[in-house]
Every structure is written in C-alpha cells, then in structure tokens.
C-alpha cells in the first residue's frame, strides 16, 4: 500500500464506517486493536458488527449530538503492499467527553499511529492503533508531565507535578 491508500483508510475511519469496514478481510479473519488488551473478547474487534459498534462513533457527522466530529489526517506511510505504519494527526470538535473526561465540545488535537498488515487480496488482517493521549489529557487539565530527562542539563526536581 502507499500514502494514498493510507489517506483513504483515514478518511473512511473518520467519515464512513461502511467504507472503512470494506477495507478489512472477511469477518473472523482480521483483528483490530485500538487500545491495550485486557481481554480479547472485549478489546479485539474481529467482525463488522463490532466495527460498527466500537468504531462507528468516529464517523459521526452531527456536530451537535456530543459525539464529536473526528478528523484523521495522514502525515506519513512507511511500508509496502504487505504491511506499513501510518502516522496521523487527529482532531475532535464538539465532543462532550474524551475518554470519559468532560471536554465541553472544545477542539482537541493530538497525533497517533496505526500499523496495518494486508493479506494477498490487499485486505487488512491486522490493525494496531495507538493515540497519543498525553497532550489531550494536559489540555483537559490532568497533571501529566513529559519532562526532558534526557537533556544534558536536566533537573530531576522537575519530575513531579507541582
């Protein structure tokens, strides 16, 4: 695959769940994991009904229902027709909550990555996605710090939130 394919995938993720689902291998022959896995029964998507239930909210097009408008903008694809990593920018507007934290509809932005593996038919058999939640958590007031401990003049006293 290539950058154009990655853009197609991202466009579908944020706008058209049917089109997104069409990019995947038949039910039972793919795995989607968009966060850590405690229990595959709940955390790994393997069929289209679950795609619609778990991912479909990202394609919401109503700016006023609190689900938010989600935009994924691809910045890079590293890979080929077998597998590859997509780097993307993410923005949400109009969401009442982000991971359960009140967001009051404000615009939130961050980045993320998605690894895709394809079968011989070009269909996705594995999706591994992670969002960088830290900037969003910070924007929503959580006391998250990412101190530059690798800087030569780093002060360890800055490790703990004040």
């Amino acid at each position: 695959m290539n950058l154009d394919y990655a853009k197609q995938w991202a466009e579908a993720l944020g706008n058209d769940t049917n089109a997104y689902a069409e990019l995947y291998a038949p039910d039972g022959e793919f795995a989607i994991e968009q966060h850590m896995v405690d229990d595959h029964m709940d955390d790994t998507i393997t069929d289209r009904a679950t795609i619609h239930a778990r991912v479909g909210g990202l394609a919401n097009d109503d700016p006023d229902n609190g689900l938010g408008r989600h935009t994924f903008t691809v910045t890079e694809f590293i890979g080929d027709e077998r597998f590859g990593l997509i780097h993307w920018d993410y923005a949400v507007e109009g969401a009442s909550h982000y991971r359960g934290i009140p967001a009051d509809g404000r615009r939130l932005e961050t980045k993320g990555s998605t690894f895709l593996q394809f079968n011989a038919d070009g269909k996705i058999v594995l999706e591994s996605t992670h969002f960088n939640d830290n900037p969003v958590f910070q924007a929503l007031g959580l006391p998250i710090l990412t101190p530059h401990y690798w800087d030569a003049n780093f002060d360890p006293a800055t490790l703990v939130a004040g």
Partner: protein
Amino acid sequence: MNYAFAIKWLKAFRTSPEEVCALYADDFLFEDLMLDQSITDKDDLHRVFAPYANKDPDNGIGIHNFRIRSYTGDERSGLIRWEWTPISAAVFLGLDVKDKPFWTQGHTFHVYNEEGKIVRESSWWDSAQVLRALGLTAEKTVTPTRSAVGV
C-alpha cells in the same frame, strides 16, 4: 528483523544504555512523541535509555520489565508489540506511582539498514491505562458511543 531481535532489543534496554544504543545506526531518528522525544543524537539516546537499565529496586527509578507480544515484518522493517510493567517506580508522567502497580501495552515500528541497525523508531503506547491504574478517569476507548452521550 524478527521476534528474537525484539527480545535482544529489550534485553539490551535492561542491560545498559551502551548495549541498546549499539543497535542503532549512527544516523537515526528515535521518536516516542508521547514522551516528547524526537532524538537524533547518540548522547541524548544514551540518557533516554539510562532509566531502563536501572537495577536498584529501591531508588524509585523502577525495574522495567518489558515483554514482547509479537513481531510483524521482515529484515528491513516491522512492528514490535510489547507490554511494559515497571516495578517499584516512584514517578511516571509526573504522577506519583509509588506503591501503585500499573502496566500498559504499546507498539514500536522499526526501520533497519543493510547492516541490521535501527535507523528509524516510532513508539506509541496506551497512557490512558496508566491513568486508570492510578484511579483517574480515562476510559479505554476514544470512540464515543451514543449511549454515553444520551443520543
């Protein structure tokens, strides 16, 4: 590379910054944007890795137990999926984690040169899991559900 290389990479984390840095080419880009890291300098990379080789369980730096879930790729690029359980760490993300066990999962994409050295690294992981373990609100999924917002 392969699963064995992924194990070698993570054992090198635990052994010393010198050993893990030796797996990187002279020209490299190391990125863990979740920790605000975008590094091309070997001295900086040594300091990035230093905490992961800590062997003192009492100094608050923690013992960093990584486990490999899978490797998907070939000899020139691929995805390592991993789990991380820091033991006896005192601070993470600026938060007090002393005596508050947590673990999480992430993935790292590598690109290797002809000599098998890492020239590109892109790491991402689930920080919401860390917050949940500390009792903070951070639901597992970003995806909103209609029931959650009452529509």
